[in-house]
C-alpha cells in the first residue's frame, strides 16, 4: 500500500533463486562458469554487494565454488543436490499451502486429488 516493492523478497534471495533455477535447468552446467559479480549486478540492476551476498549463499551451500583469479563455477553434483533439496521442500513449499488454500475455499481432499489426477484441465 505504501510502495510497490514493499513485501518483495529481499534482492539477495532473488539472486540466489535465479542462480538455483539456472543450475537446475542446466543453463549453468556443472563445472561451468557462472557470470561474474559485475555481470550479475549489471544484468539485474542491483548493487554488486547484493549480488555477492546471493552468490555467497550458494557458496555456503556448496553449490558454487570460487577459483582464484578465474571466477566462480558450478560445483559438481550441484544439480542433483538442488533437486534433492527441492524434493524435500516440496511438501512444505507446495503441498501444505495447497491444502491450506483448498480448505479456505472449501475443497475436500478428494476434490483436490481428483483435480490433480485430471491434470488441472479445469477451466
Amino acid at each position: 500500500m505504501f510502495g510497490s516493492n514493499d513485501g518483495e523478497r529481499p534482492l539477495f534471495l532473488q539472486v540466489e533463486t535465479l542462480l538455483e533455477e539456472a543450475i537446475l535447468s542446466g543453463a549453468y552446467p556443472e563445472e561451468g562458469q557462472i557470470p561474474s559479480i559485475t555481470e550479475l549486478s549489471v544484468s539485474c540492476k542491483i548493487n554488486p554487494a547484493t549480488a555477492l551476498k546471493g552468490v555467497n549463499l550458494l557458496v555456503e551451500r556448496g553449490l558454487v565454488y570460487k577459483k582464484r583469479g578465474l571466477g566462480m563455477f558450478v560445483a559438481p553434483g550441484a544439480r542433483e543436490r538442488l533437486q534433492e533439496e527441492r524434493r524435500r521442500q516440496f511438501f512444505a513449499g507446495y503441498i501444505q499451502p495447497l491444502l491450506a488454500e483448498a480448505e479456505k475455499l472449501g475443497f475436500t481432499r478428494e476434490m483436490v486429488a481428483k483435480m490433480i489426477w485430471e491434470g488441472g484441465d479445469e477451466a
Partner: protein
Amino acid sequence: MMQLVNISKSFGRVQALSGVSLTLEGTGIYGLLGNNGAGKTTLLNILTSRIFPDGGSLTLDGQPMLDRDEALSQIFMMGELNLYPEDMRVRRALEITGYMYPRFRMEEALALGERFGLNLKSRITALSTGYRSIFRIVTALSVHTPYLLLDEPVLGLDARHRDLFYKLLLESYGNDPRCILLSTHLIQEAEPLIEEAVILQAGRILRQGSVEKLLSGAYQLSGPAGLVDNFLGSRKPLAQTSLGGLKTVYLEGARPQSCPAGLEISPAGLQGYFIALMEEEESKC
C-alpha cells in the same frame, strides 16, 4: 574517508541544513534520499566547496576539505547546474575535464556518449534536458575519482536511457569500485543499487545506515482495523492507511517472531519506509 560533522547552512531565513553529520568511506554506492527541497543539493554543494557551510567541519582523510585542491581533486560532482562556459561544446568540455582530472578517460567518455547517442558537436546549453543529463553522466562515469557525486542523474531521461544509465553505472562501479553517492528523489528506482542510505528531510538526517539494517527494523502490518489497533496498543505507527475495515500500518522496531492471528506482516521496501517516515515527520508539525 570523507567526514562531515555537524554541518549547518542557512540562506536568509531558510535553514537548509542543520546538524548534518555523515561519513563516506571506502567503496560503495550510497543513496542520498529526500524530497525536493530537503537539502540534498545544498549538501552536495558544500561537499564540493561550491558553497561554504555556516558551521561544522569537513575533512577528507583527516585533512580539512573546504576549497583545498588536494581534496577537491579526489571528488567529482555532476549537478543540475552547468558550470561549463555558455558556448562550450560537449567534446571540448570533455577535453577540459581531461586536462583537470588526470584519471579521466576520453575514449571511455566517447564510447559512453555513443551508447546514448550524445552529439559531441553540440553546445552544452543547446542540449535537451535529457541529453544534458547524459552529458553529465558520460563525464561523471569517465572521471574515476575516489568519490563521485551524482545529483539527480536521471533528470529528463526516458525509460530506455534510465535503464542504460543504471547498467552503465554498475558496470563502471564493478570495473572501478569507488565511493559513489547518488542523490535522488526516485527512491524506488535507486533502492536496488544502493547499499547505504542517508535520508534527508528539511535539512536534517532522519535515518542513515545500510539499507538492509534500516529495512530490517521496519515492517508493514495489515488486517482488520480492530486487531491492528489491539496489536499496536499504545505504540504509534510511523504511518497508517485504511481501506474500509482493512488497516495497514508501518512500524519501526523488531519484527514479531510469530505473526499474530488474523494479521499479515510484510517486509518494508525503501520507498514505503521513506514515505512512512515523511508522514511521521508531517504529523509532528
